[in-house]
């Protein structure tokens, strides 16, 4: 009777890999669906725990639109054990997924508002799960600015999407790179340098930010200069994470868990958390 | 063929690095060397200036295979130097650990290093498929021996509980019960081993050379742990007087010192012990010896592995006896002195029979417990000169064979002694402070 089988919040469901694309040297985009056929049912900004038995688990954001129910997509940067093993997978492969977990960008609250959507590097994929539904229902929102910074032109993700979004009415896509190369004729500098080109109705503006830890502080400073209300600023934070369901303690920031109370936080709340940014 | 020039670089299936160099022209032996090329480690030097309690930690690392032997000899030497008298409980438990190590080392040698030669394989790896049952039995036996070491010493290699004055912890009763059951069950495996050996024993070359044998003696026991330094040639001497028996010297072709007694090479190890003490073997072991053709003194060095199997029987039975004692008497922490060692200046020598023979650890400490002198004499070092003497006797008898066969036979001869070369290459001359 000792070790009986049972249900478990840690038991993943099986998914099948439908397709893989490799937009950059380090990143691959994985399109998968649950073998059970159930839709993931995520909101913008949520993530799943990806599980490869024998290797481990890692939290990965969903980069496809919540409106897409046939499959979902994840963009994975090859940085370690699990992500490395994921990069070796080929279509047809089966692995485990738990989720979706975490909080979402409040898309309904954003209705009718001007939006500044700021992404740095691998922050673009999670933001894409917000941008896609915004673009899909464009007239529900005011002006949209998409600000994206990458280290170098080679590392720009979702080029086609960026180009297409730039074509949408009332939408401005601004890109910059830290270091340019011979192919690059655009902005060079950190993402905050793009703010000079942003013109919004400040009291009616919502902001979403996803990027590397270092980016938040500087973007917040720009927003303060602009005068955007803290209540209108949302940011997705990243922490080490083992369980995704508020148990393992790794992702705790002050009294919140990034996996349950985040990853999307309202800045007016996050600013009181001494460890947040 | 009466001329050979043999150079075996890095003899395999021995512990440590050594070469064989033999040259004979027209039946005349010109060069005959066992070259020890293991990198020197200067253990005796490392000990100087350190504290008494470190000697055992450091010297047990001389050798992975006989670390319990080094541990035992080291604490014995240190206790004799500082006048520490451990309890009977401590002595007995140490001997149980030593039995575990002799069993594990002998099994390793017989099954993993020698058996492939006799079964015509280059190593135990192919035997895993051709002789699966033998390999499984070997692993089972070795595991049991290891578990004895683990239960008492706290670790399979480099024991950690065995200290000057006593033990830092005792095995649990359940562990002892388990070990005893498995030791009893292992009698069957030992019988099978004897049978196996019997079926291949005829492959052992029939070569004999008389030599002096040196081992601990302590009638009426087949001794490993205490007693006098006995010899087939001279009178016994006390461990503290070992220098009157054993002379060490350096030779140009070896990183290990060679030893002699009365100017002649001599032999230590399982066969030497058998030759000196066989009358004191318990009946079970005597019977096995007789079955395997060992009926009293034996001058054939290839019979080392036979003597080892006989000792396995002896040690397994002695281990059972010791376990029975502890199951009966239990362990009394009050009889353990490892936390109350009093430091005192002095000089003393430990002499213990480890798998490969007699091992000496001599220490001198000052009144603060600082080590000011150390001399370690390793069994393999003592056997090196004897192996060369065996070469000299053996090579002329095999000159008619082809080169590969000669190489194999010479390697088998070296391997028979189960040399432990990293042990032997520990040394450094020490300036004694008188």
């Amino acid at each position, binding site marked *: 009777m000792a070790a009986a089988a049972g249900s478990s919040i840690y038991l993943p469901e099986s998914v099948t890999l439908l397709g893989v694309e490799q937009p950059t040297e380090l990143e691959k985009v994985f399109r998968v669906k649950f073998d059970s056929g159930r839709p993931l049912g995520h909101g913008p900004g949520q993530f799943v725990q990806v599980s490869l038995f024998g290797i481990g688990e890692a939290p990965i954001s969903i980069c496809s639109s919540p409106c897409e129910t046939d499959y979902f997509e994840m963009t994975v940067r090859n940085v370690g054990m699990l992500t490395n093993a994921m990069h070796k997978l080929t279509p047809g492969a089966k692995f485990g997924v738990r989720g979706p977990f975490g909080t979402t960008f409040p898309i309904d609250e954003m209705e009718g508002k001007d939006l500044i959507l700021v992404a740095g590097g691998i922050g673009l994929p999670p933001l894409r799960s917000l941008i896609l539904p915004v673009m899909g229902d464009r007239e529900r929102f005011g002006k949209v600015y998409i600000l994206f910074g990458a280290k170098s032109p080679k590392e720009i993700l979702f080029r086609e999407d960026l180009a297409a979004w730039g074509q949408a009415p009332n939408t401005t896509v601004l890109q910059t790179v830290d270091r340019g190369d011979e192919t690059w004729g655009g902005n060079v500098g950190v993402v905050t340098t793009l703010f000079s080109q942003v013109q919004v109705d400040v009291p009616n503006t919502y902001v979403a930010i996803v990027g590397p830890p270092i980016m938040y502080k500087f973007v917040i400073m720009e927003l303060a200069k602009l005068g955007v209300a803290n209540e209108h600023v949302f940011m997705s934070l990243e922490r080490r994470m083992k369980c995704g369901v508020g148990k393992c303690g790794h992702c705790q920031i002050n009294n919140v868990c990034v996996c349950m109370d985040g990853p999307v936080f309202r800045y007016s709340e996050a600013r009181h958390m001494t460890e947040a940014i | 063929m009466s001329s050979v020039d043999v150079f075996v670089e890095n003899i395999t299936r021995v512990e440590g690095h050594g070469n064989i160099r033999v040259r004979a022209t027209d039946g005349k032996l010109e060069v005959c060397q066992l070259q020890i090329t293991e990198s*020197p480690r200067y253990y005796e030097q*490392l000990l100087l200036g350190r504290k008494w309690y470190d000697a055992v930690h450091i010297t047990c690392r001389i050798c992975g295979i006989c670390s319990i032997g080094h541990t035992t000899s080291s604490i014995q030497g240190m206790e004799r130097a500082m006048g520490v008298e451990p309890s009977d409980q401590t002595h007995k438990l140490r001997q149980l650990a030593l039995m575990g190590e002799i069993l594990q080392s002998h099994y390793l040698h017989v099954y993993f290093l020698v058996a492939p030669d006799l079964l015509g394989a280059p190593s135990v790896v192919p035997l895993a498929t051709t002789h699966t049952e033998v390999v499984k039995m070997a692993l089972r036996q070795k595991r049991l021996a290891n578990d004895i070491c683990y239960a008492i010493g*706290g670790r399979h290699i480099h024991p950690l509980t065995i200290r000057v004055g006593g033990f830092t912890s005792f095995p649990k009763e359940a562990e002892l019960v388990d070990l005893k059951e498995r030791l009893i069950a292992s009698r069957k495996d030992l019988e099978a081993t004897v049978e196996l050996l019997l079926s291949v024993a005829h492959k052992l070359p029939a070569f004999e050379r008389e030599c002096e044998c040196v081992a601990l003696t302590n009638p009426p026991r087949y001794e490993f742990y205490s007693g006098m330094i006995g010899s087939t040639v001279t009178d016994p001497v006390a461990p503290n007087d070992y220098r009157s028996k054993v002379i060490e010297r350096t030779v*140009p072709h070896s990183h290990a010192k060679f030893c002699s007694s009365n100017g002649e090479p001599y032999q230590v190890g399982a066969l030497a012990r058998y030759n000196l003490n066989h009358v004191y073997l318990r009946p079970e072991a005597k019977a096995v010896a007789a079955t395997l053709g060992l009926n009293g003194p034996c001058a054939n060095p290839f019979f080392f592995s036979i003597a080892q199997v006989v000792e396995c029987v002896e040690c397994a039975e002695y281990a059972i006896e010791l376990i029975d004692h502890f199951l009966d008497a239990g362990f009394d922490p009050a009889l353990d002195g490892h936390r109350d060692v009093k430091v005192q200046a002095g000089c003393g020598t430990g002499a213990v029979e480890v798998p490969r023979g007699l091992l000496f650890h001599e220490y001198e400490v000052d009144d603060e417990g600082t080590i000011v002198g150390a001399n370690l004499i390793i069994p393999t070092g003592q056997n090196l000169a004897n192996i060369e003497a065996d070469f000299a006797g053996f090579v002329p008898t095999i000159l008619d064979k082809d080169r590969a066969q000669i190489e194999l036979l010479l390697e088998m001869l070296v391997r028979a002694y189960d040399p432990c070369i990293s042990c032997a290459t520990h040394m450094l001359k020490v300036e004694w402070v008188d």
Partner: protein
Amino acid sequence: MKPTAAFFSFTGCEGCQLALLECEDELLDILSAIDVVKFREAMSETSDTYDIAFIEGSISTPHDEEKIKKIRGVAKVIIAFGACAATGGLNAIRNSMGSDEDYYENLREQAYGPVGVEHFRSTKARPVHAVVPVDLTIPGCPVDRGQLLEVIESVLVGRTPRQFNHPVCVECKLNDTVCVVEAYGQMCMGPVTRAGCGAICPGRGDTCEGCRGLLPDGNFASHQQMLAEHGNPPEEIRLRYLMFNAYRCEELGVPLP
């Protein structure tokens, strides 16, 4: 294709290779998962190509140095196996007793007298990574069987083995061990030593001697002060640091009492 593995021993006691032979229960599984093509201590067959090289022992002679460079040229993965290879181990004690060329010449002369000419020159004893790049490290004197098996498993499944960047105290606690410092004031190296051994020494009432090597970010000053508070003389604390960690102290610039 099974990966091929070769074992090499340099300056050491060969106890770590023995640790592999001591995985009696798993040995047959290991042999069916990897092809051991060279293992002088246990095998006569040998090969000059291999994927994984297990290196035991320190690099302590010019000859050792030559040999390890050759191996690096062949092996895809080099595993520093045991304290001698991983951190210099006990061999490095001699580094702390002298360092100039004369010192080693002297050692050699003392050891072998004027006949020493045929022998290798000894040099400073160094861990493998001081001479060639190392891919994986299994420290310990001897290596822990469990960790050894875990590393083999990791290599087979393509996972990075755990690195144990925390001290031995963690494993003491996991084992519900009575701390020998807290209970007896003994000189334990656990708080500054890399875990992974299962805190086997304190578990049996002994102290940790630091055989798995000092942690890169250990709080050495606080540790030494703590040991001194328990009545340990500075010289003995110094010797303790210089037992398994003479090379490591030099490498990390650890101040000693």
